[in-house]
Structure formats: structure tokens, C-alpha cells
């Protein structure tokens, strides 16, 4: 290998090479940290909400007639929906995961003002909540119909039983080992409640919330003109049922309007719109930077070939094959890229430490830097192939031309 002579030759006219190495280093640092951000967002976006998203949709019924019998209306609506062929189950609730709007409450391990130790999202539901959300009950039991209350003003009502997520149970009782069933905690300073069930996962409505995994089901249906329904269908039936349920409710009672019929897939997309846009933007920036770096390498290599046409001819005259000339430029680029990549790796790690400290970014995964190194080496080598081939085609007869 000709590393030694190539390196020594480069060191005697290092300006252009240093600039390209610097460009590669900056690209590497930005690329690595952009990938780290994208990776973090992507992991966040791919977290399961805990419900059967592909087969679930939500809708809202808004009554406009004064003094409506909302309790009857909700019962009728739920009966109609649940009896539709293709529907697995349905509930009336205040919110659902990823909706970005809902209720939360501070929780206490003992009664008293200012003793909140945790917080949780609250989903109102009846005994159909577990099946509608398709939750995995780890321990305990579902609500009984008798435990489900109806209330028009839920601010004054605090249930005596709840089903909590495992994450919430662990957060409330971090030192507890064994079953959480029967454990008591307090709402709103001094309203006690008992855990009757623990589910594996049910995300809160706010995906950006740090406590997104902490939520609970509360056995309550609010009597209100504004009712949010969640419907779970048989696999493959969702789109058909969305139209059918909307039509059914619209015609069953004309004193209300049905709106916001939205599949969970769309709710998820809307919920992560910012993250999705960030990933797209960073992908574009990384691609653009990589392309600019690639073009820079092409430019330097082309300039280098043009400047050294005679030298290449001399090498050819002295016995270099076309492949040897191509190899020379590939090696030269490999050395420049390596300098940039090593410097870029140090820069990337430094930048990541700063971002972890300043913006609570997740530290780099161990494999990101090796992957970025490989990518930039490949880009560098690919960028230099064209100019190197042109160099290989330079005639050895140039050596005998005067100049």
C-alpha cells in the first residue's frame, strides 16, 4: 500500500485536504447528533399506546337540545354501537391515548395537603373499558357494573376503586413488592381509593408528558351533552364501522351532531406530527450535508486530477496501471476522509455530551458513530470514483510532452 508516500505528498500541500477533512468532520458531528435526535423521536413515536390501535376509532356526540336526557342517550348509543355486527365493544369516556387532551390528577400515598407523590391521567369508563381498549390485565379484576357510577359533575366525585397501569403502581409504591391489589392512595388531598386491577400498559393522552405511561381507569360515566365514544371493531372492520356508527348515531337522535370520527392511526399521526416533521427535516439536512460533502470531495478530487495530469502521466509511464492510478486517488481520499471522520467523531461525542446536558437528549447509542463512519467512508469513496477513473484514463504519453 502507498499510504506513506501519499500521506507525505498530502502534507506538502495540505490546504485543500484540510478543508475537506474539516467539512467531513462537521458533517459527521451534525449527522451523528441528528441521527441521535431522529432515533430518540422514532423510539418515542413507536411506543405502543397499549390499546388496539388498528381496530379502534373515536367520535364525539354533541347534543344541542336543552334538558336532554343524556344518561338515556348514552345508554342507547352504547347499546346501538355494541350490538352492531363488527363491533367488539365501545365505551363513553373523557379521552383516550394520543388524543393530546384529557384529565390528570395529583396522587397521594397518605391524606393531606401538599403530599402529592405522583400524578396520573384519568380515563372514565365502565366495565367495558378493558375490552374496548384491549388492555392486558396483569392482576386483579375488571370493574363490576355496580362499581360504575354516573355523575353529571365528576369534579365532586372520587371513585373508591380504580384500575391502574403497572407504571403508575410502581411510581406510587416504589418500594412495594408483590401484588398492588388493595393498595390505597388518595386523590386530591383526602379522597381515598383502592386499586382493584393493574394493566400492563395504557398511555396518557399526552405523548410528550414524561409520565405518559401513568394512567388509570375510573369507573364513571359523565352525564353530559358532550360525549366521547371509543369503539373497537373486529379486525378489518374499522373503516366500514366508522361510517356505519356515524350514520347510525346521526339518525338515532337528531338532537345532536356527530363529529370528530377519527381512526386511532390518524390520531397517532396527528399526535406525533411535530416529531415526524422533525425527523423529515433532520433527514433532509443530513442528506443535504452528506451530498454537499460528497460534492466537495468530487470537486477536490477533480481539481487534484486536473492539477496533477502530468504527474499521473509520469506515473503511468513508469508502469502504473489504470487500476493503480484509481487506487492512488481512492487511498488519498480514504486518508482525508479518515482524518475528517476521526475529528468528526470527537466533535460528535462532544456535541452529544453538550446536548445531553443542555437539552436532556438521550446519549448516543454505541453503534451510531461506527455507522456514520462507515457511511462517510462509503460516500467519500463513491464520490472519488469518477475523478479517479478519469485520472486512470490519462495517457502515459503526456510524460513526453514538453512542459
Amino acid at each position: 500500500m502507498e499510504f506513506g508516500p501519499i500521506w507525505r505528498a498530502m502534507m506538502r500541500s495540505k490546504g485543500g485536504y484540510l478543508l475537506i477533512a474539516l467539512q467531513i468532520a462537521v458533517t459527521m458531528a451534525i449527522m451523528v447528533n441528528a441521527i441521535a435526535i431522529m432515533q430518540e423521536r422514532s423510539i418515542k413515536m413507536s411506543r405502543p399506546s397499549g390499546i388496539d390501535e388498528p381496530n379502534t376509532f373515536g367520535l364525539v356526540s354533541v347534543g344541542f337540545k336543552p334538558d336532554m336526557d343524556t344518561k338515556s342517550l348514552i345508554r342507547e348509543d352504547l347499546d346501538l354501537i355494541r350490538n352492531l355486527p363488527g363491533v367488539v365493544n365501545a365505551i363513553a369516556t373523557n379521552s383516550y391515548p394520543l388524543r393530546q387532551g384529557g384529565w390528570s390528577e395529583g396522587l397521594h400515598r397518605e391524606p393531606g395537603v401538599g403530599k402529592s407523590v405522583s400524578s396520573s391521567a384519568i380515563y372514565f369508563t365502565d366495565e367495558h373499558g378493558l375490552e374496548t381498549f384491549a388492555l392486558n390485565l396483569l392482576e386483579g379484576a375488571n370493574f363490576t357494573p355496580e362499581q360504575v357510577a354516573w355523575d353529571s359533575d365528576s369534579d365532586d366525585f372520587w371513585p373508591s376503586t380504580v384500575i391502574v397501569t403497572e407504571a403508575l403502581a410502581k411510581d406510587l409504591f416504589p418500594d412495594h413488592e408483590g401484588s398492588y391489589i388493595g393498595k390505597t392512595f388518595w386523590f386530591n388531598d383526602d379522597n381515598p381509593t383502592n386499586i382493584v386491577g393493574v394493566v400492563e400498559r395504557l398511555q396518557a393522552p399526552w405523548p410528550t408528558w414524561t409520565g405518559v405511561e401513568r394512567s388509570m381507569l375510573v369507573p364513571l360515566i359523565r352525564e353530559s351533552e358532550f360525549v366521547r365514544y371509543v369503539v373497537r371493531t373486529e379486525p378489518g372492520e374499522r373503516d366500514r364501522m366508522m361510517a356505519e356508527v356515524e350514520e347510525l348515531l346521526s339518525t338515532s337522535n337528531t338532537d345532536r351532531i356527530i363529529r370528530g370520527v377519527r381512526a386511532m392511526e390518524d390520531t397517532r399521526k396527528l399526535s406525533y406530527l411535530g416529531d415526524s416533521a422533525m425527523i423529515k427535516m433532520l433527514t433532509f439536512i443530513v442528506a443535504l450535508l452528506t451530498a454537499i460533502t460528497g460534492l466537495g470531495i468530487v470537486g477536490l478530487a477533480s481539481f487534484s486530477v486536473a492539477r496533477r495530469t502530468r504527474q499521473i502521466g509520469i506515473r503511468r509511464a513508469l508502469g502504473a496501471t489504470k487500476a493503480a492510478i484509481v487506487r492512488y486517488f481512492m487511498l488519498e481520499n480514504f486518508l482525508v476522509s479518515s482524518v475528517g471522520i476521526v475529528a468528526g467523531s470527537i466533535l460528535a461525542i462532544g456535541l452529544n455530551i453538550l446536548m445531553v446536558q443542555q437539552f436532556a437528549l438521550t446519549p448516543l447509542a454505541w453503534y451510531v458513530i461506527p455507522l456514520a463512519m462507515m457511511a462517510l467512508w462509503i460516500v467519500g469513496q463513491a464520490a472519488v470514483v469518477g475523478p479517479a477513473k478519469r485520472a486512470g484514463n490519462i495517457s502515459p504519453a503526456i510524460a513526453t510532452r514538453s512542459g
Partner: protein
Amino acid sequence: MLKMTNVSKVYRTDTVETHALREFSLTVDEGEFVSVTGPSGSGKTTFLNIAGLLEDLTSGTYELDGRDVSKLDDTARSRVRNEKIGFIFQSFNLIPELNVFDNVDVPLRYRKFDAAERKRRIEKCVEMVGLGSRMRHLPAQLSGGQQQRVAIARALAGEPRFLLADEPTGNLDSHMADSVLDLLGEINDAGTTIIMVTHELALADRAKRNIFVRDGQVSDGSPDLHIANLAAG
């Protein structure tokens, strides 16, 4: 032995066809020191390029060491150049970023000698041309004569059968030119065949045989007459 038979070389552009060599035939025996002279545009450099496998010939045959090399592919031609032919150019053609050692090393690396063998050959040849103390000097730090000596060391390091010299003293003053020619004489005496293209009569006179080229052909007549003609312009 170098043997060209009826070699022609035609350069073509869209509008012009130039016959640089026409039915050119020449035989150079092993160990000869031959000068090739002729007026400007006579085809001397084209002959050198073809003899050195730097260019294809258009027609005819070219044998080098008994092997027909006129139809070799590019890779094979590079290999023959590297193994059998040493070049000395008018403008030295050293690589400016490389020091003396690395310049002489260039053809040896293409020959794939190991590092120890390359070092041995480089030191031997650079010592032979009297520049052993300047091994780490860059070309820009050497005089013209010294640069040409480095070029000669580079040409000899591969122990070629043929040395092709293109106006080897063209860029040197007379003192330096003499020392380079003396060196070429010594190399020839050691058995290396030398073909030297030049338009300088004094140089041609140092060769053991002179070939005169005119209009792309080896001209008939005695070398002395040709030299006299050349001198007359």
C-alpha cells in the same frame, strides 16, 4: 532486442489526419547506444512514445525482447514499461511532492517489490548517481543536473533492459549535460541498451549509432551526412 517493422502512426482529428510515422522500421540490438535525431516534427517523439509503449501504433509490428508487444492491452503494456523500460525525460518529470527516495521508489512500488528490496535498490541507484546524501531532499531543493540524476536513478532502479532518453540534457547547462552523458555512457557500458532522442548533434555524437528520422521514416544515407544536414538546418 527492439525491432519495429513497418510501423505507422496516424493522428486523426475531425478534419486533419497526420502521419507521424510511415512504414518505420528499425532494429536495435542488445547493448547498443543509439541516438535518434531529426528535425522538429520528424516523428522522433512519436517513435519514442511507441518504443516506450506510451502510445499505440496504427499499423506494423513491434517486438521487444522477441515478444510482439504491438497488440498488448493497457495493463500488459504498463507491466512491460515497468519491468523492461526506463525513461529519462527532458524536463526530468520528478514528482514535486515526493523526496528523492520516494521518487525513485515510484516504479518499484508498481513492481510490487517488498520494502527491503526497494530500499536496497533505491540506495544503490541514488548512490550510483552521486546523490546519496540528498535522499530526503525534494526536487525543488536540487539543481537541474541533480534532478536529472534522480530521474536516471529512478529509471535504473527497476534494472530495465532498455533506457529511453528524451532530450536528456535539454534543460541542462553544458557542464551538467556532460556529466549526465558520462553517466549514460557508464550505464551503457554496464550492458543497458540506450535509445536517446535528441536534436543536439554533440549528444548524437556520443552514441555508438545514429538514426536520422525525417517525415516519419528512417532516412537513408550515412549518419554523418544526416548530422551535417541537421547542422545546416
